[in-house]
């Protein structure tokens, strides 16, 4: 799932399905997302370092995955397509 600004930028709906290379991790999922929608490069992760941008968070299965190593395998329900990986614009700035 993508935040509103990125849906508008990539001209997609709230939920986008991508097939990530195994073992599917946050990074490999975002790699697949950016390959399909190059306009999203740099908007979730830094262009060069691929570090998560400061005000972006990753949630799945009611867990905050933002601070896990980016090569941690995604939870099984996400891999099975039952739950989304949520890319969220953090509530910040008032």
């Amino acid at each position, binding site marked *: 799932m993508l935040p509103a600004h990125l849906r508008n930028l990539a001209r997609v709906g709230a939920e986008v399905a991508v097939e990530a290379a195994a073992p599917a991790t946050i990074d490999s999922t975002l790699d697949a997302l950016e390959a399909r929608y190059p306009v999203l490069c740099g908007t979730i992760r830094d262009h060069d370092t691929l570090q998560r941008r*400061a005000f972006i968070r990753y949630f799945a299965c009611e867990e905050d995955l933002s601070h896990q190593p980016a090569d941690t395998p995604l939870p099984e329900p996400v891999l099975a397509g039952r739950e989304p990986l949520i890319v969220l614009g953090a509530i910040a700035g008032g």
Partner: protein
Amino acid sequence: MSKVRVLVGTHKGAFVLTSDGKRQNWEVTGPHFAGWEVYHLKGSPADPNRIYCAPSTGWHGQVIQRSDDGGKSWEPVGSKFAYEGTPGTHQWYDGTPHPYEFKRVWHLEPSLTDPDTVYAGVEDAAIFASTDGGKNWAEFSALREHDTAKGWQPGAGGLCLHTILLDPGNPQRIFIAISAAGAFRTDDGGKSWKPINRGLRSQYIPDPNAEVGHCVHHIAMSSQRPGVLFMQKHWDVMRSDDAGDNWREVSGNLPTDFGFAIDVHAHEPETIYVVPIKSDSEHFPLDGQLRVYRSRSGGNEWEPLTKGLPQSNCFVNVLRDAMAVDTMDDCGIYFGTTGGQVYASADAGDSWAPIVRDLPAVLSVEVQTLA
């Protein structure tokens, strides 16, 4: 009949305002890129349908959008601004070295002759260029590698390169300004840069006459006389008659010489406009009276222009890129405020009327005069 298109960047999107040559009735479209901060958008002089726009957000960083139909539709192009080599450091507010980090684009300056070429002034201070319509960006790194660069310190708004002026008579010559480093010029298409701050005097830095370190807010130039530059500095309105080699103060009888915006009449190179702001700690007009000041003598003698502008309880600011002029026979002047008004004058400033009153805070105003 000619038309005018005003491009307005705001805190929450971009707006396009169009009118016929009378400049009385306006069509407003937008917000484009709703919710994004649009520091600047500007049309190509070589192809007015080509417009470059720089939306950014704190969440998602910088993107560059391009229109090829005069702002009706937009396509995202390249957003990767990578400093050449190892970026190095500049001085932080506390005096310590601070690594260069790209933050955002402050200003886009399309080439005068090639619609696919556009320059970008960015924070932390650097100038980039694209020659493929905004898809790829390459830095003119000699500016950031200038001998003085390690000592550049950010102004209150960041270490931003906010002004880019292209010399219509010399394609190798570009003027830029950085807060708070000062003004620089290249005469070899960006291969080398020299500070052009002689004559600037800034009381708030250890050496008031230093080669760099001046908080230049904006520079304007008449295309008819590219060697003559006008500058609104943090304090002081300045003028150079030798392409920036030497400056002299022309604040004259201004009630305050602090401000951000400055521009030059399209057909009268000695007629210039500023919007005096009370002080560096009070960013609004004196006495709550919004007044543009015009000099018809290239500075020193100024007259207030008030007709149609609020003369009580007005406490907005007019930012550095938020004033522009059209090239109609009767030169039009435009400016936007942090209160969301865009004012237009179709008679060189004698009288004003708001085009819109309630936009988000206006960050930039540019004008295109269309055949």
